[in-house]
């Protein structure tokens, strides 16, 4: 116990104190922020005020279209648009356009407008003549093939204007038209343990994706560290000195937990940093309550993340124990990557049919359990015995691999030269008894 603790401490402090750890811890969030914020920033730069000419057959209709385009009525669809463009401020809608009405739909006018666009005195024109409406094809001409957002925003607002116009032509009053055109919304309600929660599928998916990303990141960044550190001890031959003081199981446990703690520290720093940045902007949103994750899911996340991380780190340690160089170790990485990738593939099945026999049994297999069982818990809480069995198998597997790996590791002092074959490893395990 004393030794395990000392080894954890050494692994942890030696790593956390390195410059590369500090740099990576601080730099990665900066890069991530850059990756996420920059495109949004760039998108808002593009969102300058658009000067548009609306060409209609009559000035009155032109005015109706103008009003329609400038309207700020936030209906459900346009909300999505704003989220896409990265602006939270609903008021920008009516500041987005300067609209002139032009009621002389001639070819000459069209040519003139085209020249104005080229001369950059206007950004574009909308050809909304009666003929165009009748044919159902309205032209939007601008310098650039305007973004997806711009086009859908325009067509959606125009549709509304034109639907109202058509209805009123047929004697429908504006009130009736409102009633007719009022959209409906589908609310997904999840019934679970006598409670009803209004979780959206998207949010659940997000919870699973966060888990997948974190596990992947942690495993790939730190699992490899475990492998490297095992290899380092074998190659520097310090192993023999350590083995004269501590058992190989103590060494292995200490190493995996120590390096693991480094990874957790880093992730914790990132989470805190992300929180510090995200909470102020989240607080502005009214539907903050929707983002709350239930404590059960949070607990499941913590448990399965930790165990998954341990499992894959232990496999990495085993890879380190049977390899002689890092290159060899990297060739064996598929032992870690394949279960991870397969788990990700299985997630589709989990989302679709969380209680199908295949999914249930897959969530019992320790190599898939961290992701698959967690996803099941998020989507639809499985029976308790299944969670318990899955956890039991997972922990037993971790301990099993750890013990096996400690033995191979001890025998590592006898390894020189090329990587041993499987029969050789089995033979060594025999020497390493007790």
């Amino acid at each position: 116990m004393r030794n395990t603790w000392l080894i954890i401490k050494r692994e942890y402090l030696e790593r956390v104190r390195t410059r590369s750890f500090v740099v990576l811890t601080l730099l990665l969030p900066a890069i991530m922020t850059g990756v996420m914020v920059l495109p949004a920033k760039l998108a808002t730069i593009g969102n300058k005020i658009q000067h548009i000419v609306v060409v209609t057959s009559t000035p009155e209709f032109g005015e109706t279209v103008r009003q329609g385009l400038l309207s700020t009525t936030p209906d459900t669809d346009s909300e999505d648009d704003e989220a896409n463009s990265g602006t939270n401020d609903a008021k920008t809608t009516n500041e987005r356009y300067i609209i002139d009405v032009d009621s002389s739909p001639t070819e000459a006018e069209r040519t003139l407008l085209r020249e104005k666009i080229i001369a950059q005195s206007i950004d574009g024109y909308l050809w909304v003549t009666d003929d165009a409406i009748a044919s159902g094809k309205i032209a939007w001409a601008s310098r650039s093939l305007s973004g997806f957002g711009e086009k859908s925003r325009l067509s959606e607002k125009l549709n509304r204007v034109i639907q109202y116009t058509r209805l009123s032509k047929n004697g429908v009053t504006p009130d009736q038209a409102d009633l007719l055109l009022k959209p409906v919304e589908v609310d997904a309600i999840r019934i679970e343990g006598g409670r009803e929660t209004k979780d959206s599928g998207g949010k659940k998916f997000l919870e699973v994706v966060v888990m997948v990303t974190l596990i992947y990141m942690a495993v790939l960044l730190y699992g490899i560290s475990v492998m490297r550190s095992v290899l380092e001890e074998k190659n520097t031959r310090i192993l023999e000195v350590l083995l004269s003081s501590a058992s190989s199981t103590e060494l292995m446990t200490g190493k995996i937990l120590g390096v693991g703690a480094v990874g957790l520290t880093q992730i914790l720093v990132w989470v805190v940093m992300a929180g510090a940045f995200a909470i102020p902007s989240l607080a502005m949103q009214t539907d903050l309550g929707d983002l709350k994750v239930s404590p059960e899911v949070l607990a499941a996340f913590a448990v399965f993340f930790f165990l998954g991380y341990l499992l894959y780190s232990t496999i990495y340690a085993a890879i380190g124990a049977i390899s002689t160089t890092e290159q060899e170790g990297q060739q064996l990485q598929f032992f870690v990557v394949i279960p991870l990738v397969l788990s990700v593939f299985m997630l589709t099945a989990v989302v679709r049919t969380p209680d199908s026999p295949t999914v249930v049994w897959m969530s019992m297999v320790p190599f898939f359990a961290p992701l698959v069982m967690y996803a099941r818990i998020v989507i639809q809480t499985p029976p308790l015995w299944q969670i318990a069995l899955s956890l039991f198998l997972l922990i037993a597997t971790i301990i099993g691999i750890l013990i096996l790996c400690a033995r191979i590791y001890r025998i590592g002092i006898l390894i020189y030269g090329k990587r041993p074959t499987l029969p050789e490893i089995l033979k060594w395990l025999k020497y390493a008894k007790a």
Partner: protein
Amino acid sequence: MIMAPPQVPTAPPPRPALNPNAAATIELQGVCKSYDKFVAVDNLSLAISPGKIYGLLGPNGAGKTSTLRMMIGIIVPDSGHVSIFGEPLERAHMDRVGYLPEERGLYKKMKVLDHLVFLAQLKGLSAHEASTRARSWCERFELTSWTGKKVEELSKGMQQKVQFIGAVLHDPDLIIMDEPFSGLDPANAVALKDAVLELAKNGKTILLSTHRMDQAERLCQSIYLINHGRAVLEGDLNQIKARYGCCNVQIKYEGDAGFLQNTSLVQSFNDYGNYVEARLAPGADAQELLKLASAGARINKFELMEPSLEEIFMEAVSKTHA
């Protein structure tokens, strides 16, 4: 000097019965270890009593390292029994044992002092105590200005010294060293030798394995000579030398060396003209040879040579082959 010829053994002397009392610092009884089909250690028994410097000698591949590794529990014997400080070997005993493996290894990125403290803490020392002792040892080995440096910045010789300090920092009762002098320059080798002698003077038991007979000869009080995993010679070095030290005679003479030609006293000789090295036949009395020689020539010097450990080793090994 002229010595009375003792009885010349024709075979390795019978192994003395293992001391059954618990006084032995470490004791192997009938230990065997084989890897696959290769037998590394074959029914080896030895007992090391406290406060002495022992040498575990043998050619490369004799099973020295395997033997040492079994003594500290890194590998487990296939059969036989290892006991230490009078008890069956357990990991807890390792706090009282210092081990310097043949393959030196340190964490390259760690600072020297931190590294030493870590090694000593693994042996149960407090961080503070470890740090104090490490500083004084570093001072002794002229490493003081390097304690804050990373191990990788040190020369190989300095790393060796750090490794040695790491093995003795916890003041172990038993120190096991595998080829401790390999790779050290003469000055550092002397510093290490002095440290080893001082430890022995302070009552520590020291077991060092080496294939360098000259070093063992100068340092060790007792030796175990092993070959092919078996003990071929063991005991107090002086006694062994006395047993073997009778067969070589160095004669400086003037005149006729014919006295060497037709006598059953000499097994073989090497004549340099006025100087001859002769090997006495088994059971021959050197005094008889002296009489014979002085009868035919003028003898300026007649010396019974003490054989070097290397010669003893060669002879013992060749006998086991026969």
